């Protein structure tokens, strides 16, 4: 009898430990985050998605932006393979055509034409599941970066440009074009023999995208820069 009781206690303890471990794992999953971006009236913002979908499905502009922009707004989504834009128009009935997929680490424009604007500035919260080791692995790779590409740091964290593998592996003569949403113009930086012409500690912010123009080809791999979610 004593043995049976002991066995039951051990089994219960093991089950509790298992459940605790499972609970711990669950706690580290499905961390939801958001990034705030703004789009001026009559202007553009070059933004990105740093998140995954919560249910593993593909994300479209309806999922990412929804009705946060007024009717008449546009999203121009960079198609990395064919090197063209796929555009979406916000209609009264939603985004049209609404089928273009937005991928983490790839840039897209948000445009609010003056004729569509309902305010001088439109705030958009881009939301989703924070990439973690369970759903995405410890690293993220954006493969086959070549020619001109609208890219973004694939995690919801700020990063010093020269600390990215993309910058390190760039060739002399490659360009970085960064959109300034305030001045509605580009600042461009060249990789010279002496390094990048960016200012010291030039940072790519969460939600920000940029153009990378290269004469080479590389697979851009970054390690998840945060410890939680694991």
């Amino acid at each position, binding site marked *: 009898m004593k043995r049976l009781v002991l066995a039951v206690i051990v089994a219960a303890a093991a089950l509790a430990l298992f459940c605790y471990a499972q609970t711990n794992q669950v706690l580290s999953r499905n961390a939801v985050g958001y990034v705030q971006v703004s789009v001026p009236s*009559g202007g*553009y913002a*070059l933004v990105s998605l740093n998140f995954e979908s919560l249910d593993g499905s593909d994300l479209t502009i309806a999922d990412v932006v929804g009705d946060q922009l007024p009717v*008449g707004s*546009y999203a*121009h989504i960079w198609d990395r393979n064919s*090197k*063209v*834009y*796929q*555009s*979406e*128009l916000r*209609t009264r009935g939603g985004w*049209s*055509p609404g089928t273009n997929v937005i991928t983490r680490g790839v840039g897209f*424009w948000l*445009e609010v*034409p*003056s*004729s569509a604007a309902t305010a001088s500035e439109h705030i958009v919260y881009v939301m989703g599941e924070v990439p973690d080791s369970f759903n995405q692995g410890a690293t993220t790779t954006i493969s086959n970066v070549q*020619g*001109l590409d*609208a890219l973004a740091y694939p995690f919801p964290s700020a990063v010093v440009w020269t600390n990215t593998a993309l910058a390190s592996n760039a060739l*002399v*003569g490659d*360009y970085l*074009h960064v*959109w300034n949403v305030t001045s*509605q*113009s*580009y*600042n*461009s*930086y*060249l*990789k*010279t*023999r*002496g390094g990048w*012409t960016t200012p010291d500690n030039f940072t790519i912010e969460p939600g920000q995208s940029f*153009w990378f*123009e290269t004469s080479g080809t590389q697979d851009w791999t970054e390690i998840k820069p945060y410890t939680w979610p694991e």
Partner: protein
Amino acid sequence: MRRAKNMSIRLLGVMAGSMFCASTALAYLMVAWGASEGFYFPGDPSHGILTNGETTIAQLIFSVDAVADPVDINNSAGGYVSGDDVVLAEYTLTSGINCDEWAYFGAPNYTGAYSAGYIFGRIFEDNTPAIGERYFNGPMETAEDRSPPQSPQSYDFNSGPGYGDDLDQVIPIPEPLTAALYGLGTLVILHRRRKA
């Protein structure tokens, strides 16, 4: 019902952008320009063109006919260009400040109205060009109409890896006819002043 619009971008001179934006009807020449490798004097690729503290001028130039016309030393007000060339932007380089002896650099972007033509870069051996001094013309490239959301047209003075390019051009003595006309003009002015 309005249609969703599709736009395309031509890459690196291969992909041409076409877009139909209600909000941006203007045509822009938007150029990111710089030199990735730097410059040296002919026969001396082990040293750059500047010593510490020296200054020189880099220019982004527009040409209608795709010909880099020779430097006109008498046209300092116009940036020393001649023929149909027009200086779009100048960038002053000082070794030890915004470049090193090789004078590789990334200049602030140029943005202006677009018109059909070509662009090329020019860099002098110093900031006071004089007859007999050297300069370099970068490759001639077709100017592209780039308006947001397109990316800027990128322009690199240096076209390949290595130690950069040598300053292979020499600022010429103004041709005799031009010099004669200048002399004649001076005489006319003096004559008028005497009369007055």
